[in-house]
């Protein structure tokens, strides 16, 4: 055996689940590696394309992991967000009913919530609903109000968790799709296209592909299929239309289409819910978007759909098991732990899932020795828009890059963009910058700041602007240098002519 590095735990997937597990484990003296197929944290799966909600926990069936971990996870976010410097708003949520039939369902949810241990639940009358939400449709009859629900930026949070994990010693590799896993005695050989990693334990947090990963190692197979959800984001001038997360009564396909403010002040509409087969189908569709708009209007019909600034699709990792619950536990291959089939309320549950995985690993024999120097806090993020003018001036004096505004729509400075690139697990692409500091998320969707961000990325990463990508792989923004392209083309044409005439 070669003198290769042996990891204690290798986590597959750098979504919110994988990163949360990495951070949890980084509290202990362990060699941790997170292997991610995408180019960045939260770059491929549901962690970047979801409803951005912290669910209260009345929706999951009592007694399930979903229920327990949802409620436990929800409680943990205030402290986590404080430590990780991630904006969070405890807006509360409403499940609104438009008929007596639907009111009956509210009672059911309320019951479930109580059984699940959810605090701050109450059933409220139409008048009380209108007090909380003045713009809600007048057809509302009653609602279930959940105080503990909230909104957050899901990819911003995942990035913060990853950064803190890295800060505390966890390693990350990107652009590394796992193609094979073999148990070799008492450790695993995990293969990507480029290299091999050795690890005593493997945690499967591969989301939509967690079935593929599980089946690769030869454990008892299960399957996970994509359940597509389409969303619309509306301009910040529509954000006033909702103060809480407004749900409608759930169906067996999920919690339904909601209308919600985002933590940055936009209005979010969606998601639809449609079972599909293709795990790579990430497109929005005419039908899906129209459905989201139509159903959302049932709750709040005042929004102006022409104020939409972008739309996106997320794929839920829906498990094809009987109980449809999270698949969390050591598989029948010793040392291979699943945190699989994590769909809603997966984001809310993530910190609690991490705790549970830690305990499962401990039970499986992993030695957990606490690190004395574990730092739960990441370096605070400077957000120009949140500073006072005095703070801004002090900052600009020290670092003039904070006086240069690059994204005009969201008022993001060059200093913030440079910081986003230079931090641990920093941005390497246009989308990476966008998810960390919001440059490109405003009304013009990057038309103005795009070229400038490309320039900054090229400079900071010491690459040519031709190598800058939107989100890794071959999503290059630019294809050729002008002039050079013409000359090369002419040379090619000439070559063709020469060979044709030869």
């Amino acid at each position, binding site marked *: 055996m070669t003198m290769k590095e042996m990891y204690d735990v290798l986590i597959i997937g750098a979504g919110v689940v994988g990163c949360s597990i990495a951070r949890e484990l980084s509290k202990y003296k362990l060699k941790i590696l997170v292997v991610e197929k995408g180019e960045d944290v939260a770059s491929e799966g549901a962690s970047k394309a979801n409803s951005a909600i912290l669910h209260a926990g009345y929706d999951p069936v009592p007694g399930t992991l979903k229920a327990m971990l949802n409620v436990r996870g929800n409680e943990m976010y205030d402290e986590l967000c404080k430590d990780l410097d991630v904006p969070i708003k405890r807006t509360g949520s409403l499940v609104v009913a438009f008929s007596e039939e639907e009111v009956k369902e509210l009672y059911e949810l309320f019951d479930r919530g109580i059984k699940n241990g959810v605090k701050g639940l109450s059933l409220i009358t139409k008048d009380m609903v209108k007090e909380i939400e003045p713009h809600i449709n007048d057809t509302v009859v009653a609602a279930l109000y959940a105080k503990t629900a909230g909104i957050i930026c899901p990819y911003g949070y995942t990035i913060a968790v990853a950064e803190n994990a890295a800060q505390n010693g966890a390693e990350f590799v990107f652009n590394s799709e796992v193609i094979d896993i073999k148990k070799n005695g008492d450790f695993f050989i995990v293969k990507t296209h480029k290299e091999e990693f050795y690890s005593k334990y493997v945690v499967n947090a591969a989301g939509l592909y967690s079935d593929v990963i599980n089946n690769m190692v030869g454990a008892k197979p299960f399957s996970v299929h994509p359940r597509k959800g389409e969303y*619309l*984001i509306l301009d910040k001038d529509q954000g006033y239309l909702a103060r809480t997360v407004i749900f409608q009564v759930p169906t067996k396909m999920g919690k339904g289409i909601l209308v919600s403010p985002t933590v940055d002040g936009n209005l979010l509409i969606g998601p639809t819910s449609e079972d599909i087969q293709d795990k*790579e189908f*990430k*497109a*929005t*569709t*005419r039908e*899906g*978007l129209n459905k989201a708009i139509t159903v959302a209007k049932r709750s709040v019909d005042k929004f102006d759909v*022409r104020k*939409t*600034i*972008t*739309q*996106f699709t997320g794929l839920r990792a829906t498990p094809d098991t009987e109980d449809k619950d999270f698949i969390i536990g050591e598989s029948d291959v010793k040392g291979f732990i699943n945190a699989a089939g994590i769909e809603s309320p997966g984001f809310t549950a993530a910190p609690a899932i991490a705790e549970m995985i830690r305990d499962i690993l401990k039970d499986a024999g992993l030695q957990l020795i606490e690190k004395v120097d574990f730092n739960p806090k990441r370096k605070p993020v400077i957000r120009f828009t949140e500073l006072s*003018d005095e703070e*801004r*001036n002090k900052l*600009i*004096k020290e670092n*003039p*890059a*904070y*006086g*240069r*505004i690059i994204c*005009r*729509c969201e*008022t993001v400075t060059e200093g913030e963009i440079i910081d986003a690139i230079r931090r641990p697990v920093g941005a390497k692409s*246009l989308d990476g910058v966008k998810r960390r500091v919001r440059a490109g998320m405003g*009304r*013009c*969707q*990057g*038309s*103005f700041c*795009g*070229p400038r961000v490309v*320039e900054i990325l090229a400079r900071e990463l010491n690459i040519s*602007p*031709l190598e800058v*990508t*939107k*989100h*890794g*792989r*071959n*999503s*290059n*923004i*630019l*294809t*050729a*240098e*002008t*002039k050079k*392209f*013409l000359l090369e*083309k002419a040379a090619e044409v000439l070559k063709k002519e020469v060979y044709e005439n030869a």
Partner: protein
Amino acid sequence: MLNYDIVIIGGGPAGLGAAVEAYEKGVKNIVIIERDKYLGGILEQCIHNGFGLQEFKEELTGPEYAQRFIDKVEEYDINVMLETMVLEITPDRIVKAVNSKEGVFTIKAGAIILAMGCRERPRGAIMIPGTRPAGILTAGTAQRYVNMEGYLPGKEIVILGSGDVGLIMARRLTLEGAKVKAVVELMPYSSGLTRNIVQCLEDFNIPLLLSHTVIEIHGKDRVEGVTIAKVDENREPIMETAQYISCDTLILSVGLIPENELSQKAGIELDPITGGPIVNEMLETSVPGIFACGNVLQVHDLVDNVTAEARLAANSAIRFIREGEFGKSSINVKAGNGIRYVVPQKINVDNIEKRIKFRMRPVNVYNNAMLAVKSGDKYLLRQKRQRLTPGEMIDVNLSKDILKNANLEEGIVFLVEEG
């Protein structure tokens, strides 16, 4: 706090025109605040010609046109703040801005001239379904890459929108070796200048597909193709006509939107049709002492008109700082049949010396129609116009005499009389 008689926000053709005019009319304590590294605004990347035929009786390229004014700004030594972004303006004319040298600072302005120009409508605003790969960009952004940075955004291009920016880029990209496979236009006519259809599309045999739109974008990491379809009278796609065009780039030229975030935050009333401030005959907005000109007020086709508008704004600003607030402009100007919008939206005939120039756009293409101005039942004007098209701004001058002699209580309406 700094103090300037006139603060001009934006150093493109509107801001430059206003600054030079103000200085030449005797107000020298002025400043131009520009967010880019150099003056010139959007003209800097418009290296094609067609500018200045009215203003200079020459056909110039964008940078040449801008330089005529930049030269004057330098000659007059007019104050300029580059790489400076205005963060906020208040109704009492305090401007807050930031740059990397001075940090955040405030300016008390005698008058403010808004000249921020416009931005482009992105993919998300028109909800094209499909994936979100690299290779989707607006025509202006493509223009910046090609003309200022020296990069091609793609090699096989489909352009959505046949406005002038899209047409110009069709030619530019073709000249630099890319293949433009088609220009797709939703309407049954192009909104670009006819000369551009000829020298940008016909010259290069680039097909123009009228009454078509893009209904889906394909490609995981980079654009791989688009699906287009014909549209019906309601501009809804006819799914049976769907066809796939392979390409690596989709360029969007689907509308310009005046950049009024600052105006909105200052409580300035905007016209929902133009997207710009509601102004009176002095180009003053609903906030006294704040004026608007150029693309921030209404999207123009010819920069020469922007310069003319900027001069009016400058003269109005000078009158404001010398004479104080004007008499209220309370006569409403409305767009009637066939007209999309009219600027100015409110007038006061006592405020003007000689005439008011009204600018407007028609809703459709009209051939051999009558352009009319009415107040109540009475006609103030009736002119035959050979061709009216949404792509070409119309201007109508109404003299003070005509306006004074009419009973304008019911406001004035501009309309098109067909047939």
